């Protein structure tokens, strides 16, 4: 397993040279912001206006580190948990909250439970299911490569996804056509309540790449310097024509799978405590503090500011009018067939009578 920063925050290897001081601080801020966002969403969820939330606590280094290793021309395929990736990618909080509240300014028009998608930011609408986007990412990458573009496509997935046929067909395809795709697998040890030992007999997930003839590496997913360095290496290799890679970020989901899950039913407090000691944010905090780039006071001030920004964004989203019923029937086809238009008429009559 590749690790550059010890759990005590001591540098043990050579980080990527593009990790400048300002970049390190930005990465730290995004990780802290992600955790505040998590905490905020878990607080407002019980109020009943957000249908589901999948917390990212514990995986911030994997998500923020990988996102920062990309360039603007690269495409991201997030799953439902990758809010930290969106934050790192610069999606405004108001837009995220409009999405969570599925109001009339929701970019997805309330059509999908998945977290977010915006083609102009090169973030593809994620799928509600694991690894389903992998074959689609490969197709986009094939098209991009044949057009002579230099974009790389990163697919986020979990440990459970490596058991699925679509993942295996996609990684094989990517290998055969040498497409610029990074399969970024966060092995967070649990697929809801099923441990990774029930997903595979293989010792690591990274080893699976070997059979497809592409590089497979395991990186300490709680070490943001290692994640950034490894992802950047393979992203740039793919950009240069080297083809796909599979990266296993070895990490842990501290929280529940989603707000609909209670992890106390299937795993021990002791296990969670052990992983808390490997917390990615405190590791980076120690490192940056020792370098004189960060302090507890600075962190508190940043948390205060970010929380205020989030409060305002949430207020704006909450006070934005809801979607109109007509949105249900929009965007089914490019041109609406008459029988769908008829349904719309029916729906509006029904809404007028009953609402």
């Amino acid at each position, binding site marked *: 397993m590749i690790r550059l920063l010890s759990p005590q925050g001591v540098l043990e290897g050579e980080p990527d040279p593009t990790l400048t001081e300002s970049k390190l601080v930005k990465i730290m801020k995004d990780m802290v912001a992600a955790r505040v966002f998590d905490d905020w969403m878990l607080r407002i969820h019980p109020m009943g206006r957000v249908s589901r939330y999948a917390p990212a606590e514990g995986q911030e280094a994997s998500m923020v580190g990988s996102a920062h290793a990309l360039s603007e021309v690269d495409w991201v395929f997030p799953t439902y948990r990758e809010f930290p990736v969106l934050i790192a990618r610069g999606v405004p909080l108001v837009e995220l909250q409009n999405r969570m509240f599925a109001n009339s300014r*929701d*970019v*997805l*028009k309330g*059509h*999908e439970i*998945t977290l977010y*998608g*915006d*083609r102009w930011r090169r973030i*593809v*609408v994620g*799928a509600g*299911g694991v690894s*389903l986007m*992998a*074959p*689609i*990412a*490969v*197709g*986009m*990458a*094939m*098209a*991009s490569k*044949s*057009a002579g573009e230099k974009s790389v496509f990163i697919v986020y997935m979990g440990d459970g996804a490596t058991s699925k*046929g*679509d993942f295996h*067909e*996609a990684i*094989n*395809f990517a290998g*055969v*056509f040498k497409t610029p795709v990074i399969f970024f697998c966060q092995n967070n040890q649990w697929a809801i309540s099923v441990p990774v030992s029930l997903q595979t007999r293989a010792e690591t997930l990274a080893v699976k790449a070997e059979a497809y003839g592409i590089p497979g590496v395991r990186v300490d997913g709680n070490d943001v310097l290692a994640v950034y360095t490894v992802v950047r290496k393979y992203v740039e290799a793919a950009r240069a024509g080297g083809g796909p890679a599979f990266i296993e970020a070895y990490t842990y989901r501290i929280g529940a799978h989603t707000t609909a899950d209670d992890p106390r039913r299937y795993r021990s407090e002791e296990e969670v405590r052990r992983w808390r000691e490997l917390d990615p944010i405190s590791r980076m905090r120690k490192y940056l503090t020792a370098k004189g780039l960060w302090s507890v006071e600075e962190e508190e001030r940043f948390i205060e500011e970010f929380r205020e920004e989030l409060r305002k964004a949430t207020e704006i989203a909450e006070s934005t009018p809801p979607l109109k019923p007509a949105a249900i029937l*929009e*965007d*089914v*086809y*490019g041109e609406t*067939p008459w*029988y*769908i238009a008829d349904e719309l008429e029916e729906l509006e009559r029904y809404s007028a009578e009953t609402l």
Partner: protein
Amino acid sequence: MADRELTYVEALNEGLREEMRRDDSVIVFGEEVAASGGVYKVTKDLLKEFGPKRVLDTPISEIAIVGAAIGAALNGLRPVAELMFFDFAGIAFDQIVTHASKMRFMSGGQVKLPLVVRTQYSLGRAYGSQHTQFLAASFMQAPGLKIVAPSTPKDAKGLIKSSIRDDDPVLFIESGALYVNRTYYGYKGPVPEEEYLIPIGKAEVKRSGDDISIVAVSRVVSEAMAAAEQLSAYGIKAEVVDLRTIMPMDYQTVLESVKRTNRLIVAEDSVKTCGVSAEVASHVCEYGFDYLEAPIIRLNSPPMPAPQSAELERRYMVTSDKIVEAARRLVV
């Protein structure tokens, strides 16, 4: 300009070739489509003309074939992906139903998906239960998807061209029987020299008549045309309506025909339970009940797997004889 006679396969090949010449963003991929030109020669010589960047043989991976088509469509291409048998669409069901048909909707209209999944079903070729299924009805539960099933060379060419130009995902179902069975009306036929398109979503009256409407699609249009000919000997003038597109369905043309004939047979290759015919029949019952002077007859494969023996298969599937018999029962 005059029409030439082309086979169903030749017409499809010509349609693909014309669209590839017209638009560089059209690419073709799937199993056996490039070097061998397709198991049934529909993609014959496309590799030679357009090269390996636009005509690709892939691994045997139906999920990845359709998934890659979705991705390519999201990124500016117009992919035509081939699934060798319709039965194999089951493997890619998730990509077609859960992704292709919903991505425009899920994205709030941010994206379009100009992709075609071409496939064929081989009922009528004695291939047995795993290589003959006409599964169109299974895909009718996926709004956002268009389903096209041409019955003649002319329609095949005009519809493949329209499907490639369409901005929505199209499941394009060919008939393996029409590839090979020379006795069929749809095996070979006139195809205009000049360029033309057949619109998606429009049925066509293939033969006019006042006594009874026979609504059919794909292979069964050939059976219906043969049946209509036989019925004329009994003095029964049958109208044959070819759906051509299954989704979005042209209910109006069906209703207009029934309004004139007052009698309806729906004949097609789904197994009967919840088949395409069920949708046609229920729509006519709901919106055209007053036009009917007799109960609707649905002719389908029985709700059981297809047998392999050619002898048994002929009894299993819809044939002109069965249509004639049903029509004579209805028109008394």
